């Protein structure tokens, strides 16, 4: 499991990230200049979390507490992946290397790393991160620059790509796992309520997302606890 094995493995992820972060760059260019948008991607390397973060920055009433709580819940799954990955790593993957490479724990890089039959070495994991990191950062840069140049009708169309990707993550799981279908529908109904029920309209975007996800996930966990083999999906 060498560094170059990792780099090769990361190529398809890097290409996918370029496409997705392009649309993040476009969304970001409506609020921030291109260097600032790009820097978000370089320091975070997370799709849903950055996107929610951008929505909170764009909201005039958005607060730092809200940002911290929203980021925490949206990215909480990385902690699960980190725990899972810590069971898979080679013995010489020490504390310092873990601190250095922890940023590479994204849905796709994690999934590829844990699917290996051999223990994951620090070199391999570092290699795996390279192209996704470059793809994510450069895609954001290109999207943000294009967002400042292209007409609104084109950028709006490209901006929908990120939602398209979210749909592509959620729908297959809804199809395969009925409890997820129910949990997602609860979240959607809840989300509509925050948009259209006058009494709830004062709640900021970030908190609305957090509350919807918490309510739906708690109901899901209470009614349909998942079996161990379902969690890896």
């Amino acid at each position, binding site marked *: 499991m060498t560094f170059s094995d990792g780099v090769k493995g990361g190529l398809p992820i890097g290409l996918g990230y370029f496409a997705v972060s392009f649309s993040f760059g476009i969304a970001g260019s409506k609020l921030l200049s291109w260097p600032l948008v790009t820097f978000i991607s370089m320091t975070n390397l997370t799709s849903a979390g950055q996107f929610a973060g951008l929505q909170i920055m764009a909201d005039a009433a958005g607060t730092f507490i809200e940002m911290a709580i929203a980021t925490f819940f949206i990215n909480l799954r990385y902690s699960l992946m980190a725990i899972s990955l810590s069971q898979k790593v080679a013995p010489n993957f020490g504390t310092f290397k873990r601190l250095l490479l922890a940023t590479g724990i994204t*849905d796709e890089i994690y999934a590829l790393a844990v699917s290996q039959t051999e223990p994951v070495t620090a070199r391999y994991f570092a290699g795996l991160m390279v192209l996704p990191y470059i793809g994510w950062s450069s895609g954001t840069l290109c999207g943000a620059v294009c967002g400042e140049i292209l007409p609104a009708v084109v950028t709006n169309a490209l901006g929908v790509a990120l939602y398209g990707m979210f749909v592509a993550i959620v729908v297959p799981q809804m199809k395969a796992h009925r409890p997820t279908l129910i949990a997602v529908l609860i979240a959607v109904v809840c989300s509509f309520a925050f948009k259209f029920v006058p009494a709830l309209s004062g709640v900021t975007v970030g908190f609305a997302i957090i509350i919807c996800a918490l309510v739906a996930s708690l109901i*899901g966990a209470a009614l349909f606890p998942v079996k161990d083999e379902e969690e890896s999906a």
Partner: protein
Amino acid sequence: MITVHDYCLFLLVMAGVTYLLRAVPFVLLKGKIKSRFWRSFLAYVPYTVLAAMTVPAIFYSTDSKLSGVCALAAAVIASLLGRGLVGVAVIACITVLGIDGLTLLL
């Protein structure tokens, strides 16, 4: 537009929380979470978060509600038909470009 000062603080919070969520368990935890309830809760979180972020926001992200609704419908159908991340994203984009582009021309 937000100020650079606020941007820096928001970024620090966002990047800091994200990093700690990854690094702290990676470095410290060796065992598995024992509670089935919390494992289940965490398994549902990514999907409910993405759903709440997408609907109804997608309807207001384009030039018209019509194109937003059609984009969501097209994405769901494409996904049900087995298209991957990039395929579904491209189909959603083309749908919006087609509808809003036509509206602009007519």
